[in-house]
């Protein structure tokens, strides 16, 4: 007689398949998101590109308008603008991903400091601090720090991460509080599981899953902010779409494509990433996240 009991391996693979099917939309969206990343990063690296050397207008500029060879035209030094936009956008997205990841990790750490406390008002200090933050636009704080410090990457990433943590900390805290009213959590308390078991094994995984959606939503927002800061000249010596547009504005009569196409490119990439982020967040049922940047 054939043994109908499934082996451990096949049982595990079936469970894995079932989970993959449950999260098929998230996987598809994550793949699309990562493909956009990969396409941007495939353009090259920024190591040998210095904005101060390429965004200048020599006496005899070598720029060319948009054509078949150069879709977006070329810069005054003869560089392909489309490729330059891809490299600049890749760097911006990398910075945005780093800042939002660090910010979310900081917010999570801050929430975990209070999460094991059984008191009902354990998050009240964090929430009060968060409310004060709403009185000040984040862009203002970033501008002050970057203008004073010279606009380095470390200052940008660290300040953005702190701002993300400051504003999202209360949201994460409210997720924790809402989770505690879920029927399965109430049942777990009744059954006699300890608080640390419930927080670590039930509430934290659900919160981390939602954080993935927030991460996807944050990247285009931070990227937009970084471009704005670079446009204003607080982007230090790094290549950015904002810097390209600012340079294009200086030569608006001679080479208008330098001000037009980088913006078109940035808008398209941000639209794609924004929509993918929104759909990812919806698939993961992240819920309301205040837009603060």
């Amino acid at each position: 007689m054939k043994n109908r009991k499934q082996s451990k391996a096949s049982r595990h693979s079936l469970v894995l398949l079932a989970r993959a099917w449950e999260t098929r939309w998230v996987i598809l969206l994550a793949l699309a998101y990562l493909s956009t990343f990969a396409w941007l990063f495939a353009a090259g690296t920024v190591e040998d590109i210095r904005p101060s050397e390429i965004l200048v207008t020599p006496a005899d500029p070598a720029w060319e308008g948009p054509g078949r060879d150069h879709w977006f035209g070329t810069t005054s030094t003869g560089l392909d603008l489309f490729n330059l936009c891809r490299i600049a956008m890749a760097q911006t997205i990398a910075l945005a991903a780093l800042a939002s990841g660090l910010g979310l990790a900081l917010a999570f750490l801050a929430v975990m400091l209070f999460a094991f406390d059984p008191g009902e008002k354990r998050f009240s200090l964090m929430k009060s601090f968060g409310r004060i933050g709403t009185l000040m636009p984040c862009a203002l704080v970033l501008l002050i720090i970057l203008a004073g410090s010279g606009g380095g990457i470390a200052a940008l990433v660290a300040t953005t991460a702190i701002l993300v943590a400051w504003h999202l900390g209360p949201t994460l805290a409210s997720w924790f509080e809402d989770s505690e009213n879920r029927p399965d959590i109430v049942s777990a308390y009744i059954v006699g599981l300890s608080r640390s078991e419930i927080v670590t094994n039930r509430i934290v995984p659900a919160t981390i899953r939602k954080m993935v959606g927030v991460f996807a939503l944050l990247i285009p927002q931070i990227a937009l902010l970084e471009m704005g800061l670079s446009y204003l000249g607080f982007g230090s010596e790094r290549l950015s779409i904002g810097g390209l547009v600012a340079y294009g504005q200086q030569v608006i009569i001679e080479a208008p494509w330098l001000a037009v196409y980088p913006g078109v490119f940035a808008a398209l990439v941000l639209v794609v990433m924004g929509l993918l982020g929104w759909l990812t967040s919806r698939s993961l049922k992240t819920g309301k996240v205040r837009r603060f940047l």
Partner: protein
Amino acid sequence: MIRFFGQRLLVMLVRLVIVAILLVTAIELGYGVLGNSDVHVWEVSFSDPVVPLAELSGSSTWEGMIPLLKSSMLIVGLAWGATVLVGYSWGILAARLRQFKGHHLFLVPWLVLASIPGFWWVIQVAIYSYFKWERPGFANEVVVESGPDLMQWWNAVVVAIPLGVLGISVQMRVVSERIREEAGLPFVRGLHRAGYSESEIFYKNILRRLTGELVRLSDATLPLILGGLIFVEVAFRYEGMGSFLISSLQLSYFPGIFVTGIWMAGIIGLAALIREMVVHSLGDD
């Protein structure tokens, strides 16, 4: 009511004091600690000539800030007004159409528009007006010396549009999400079973129950609009508080940075105070 107003005013003032402390800390951290500046926040004086204002409004006293304040308030008013009007109506409409498949697509146009960098948009308008109408495209290039200053309105609208679009995209989303959340509650199913029509349930029950909460969302977009103002004003060379802030930052003029920060916090705080009073008067605390 007066007691409530006094309480909220006190809370707002305390928050403003904390914001002032945070601003001073951020300035000292940015310039003094990270930037190794020789000048510190405790060494500056408000009575010195206001250098950034001399470039923008021609006056180096604080009185020169009044036209900049008026110009920026006009933009904030236009952008926030559009946000409230369009954001609420679009959000309510999106929630009303929730039974239809693909109703989320209704929100997509604004989300797409909000992804366009605002600073780039105003530059495009400037390029277009220069090449199409053969007149200077940026805000500081034409001064109307006699007659009604229609250019001021044109410039303000150009700057307000990207900020309004950003505000609308956020406002409609939070409004529609909140209404849809309410529409998923069991009492709505009960009303359906009792034979109430969809429009009766939506307008006379769901919206009526949510009035207070929807009012509470009215000032949620102000920090975004004020933050965006800084970038868009500079891009369009519009002389307002955003341009003043950037000049102050570039010249390391700390009082200018501080005053602009407090102005922004003051507007947001005042809007929050008015919103709290309205919600309180609706009896929905």
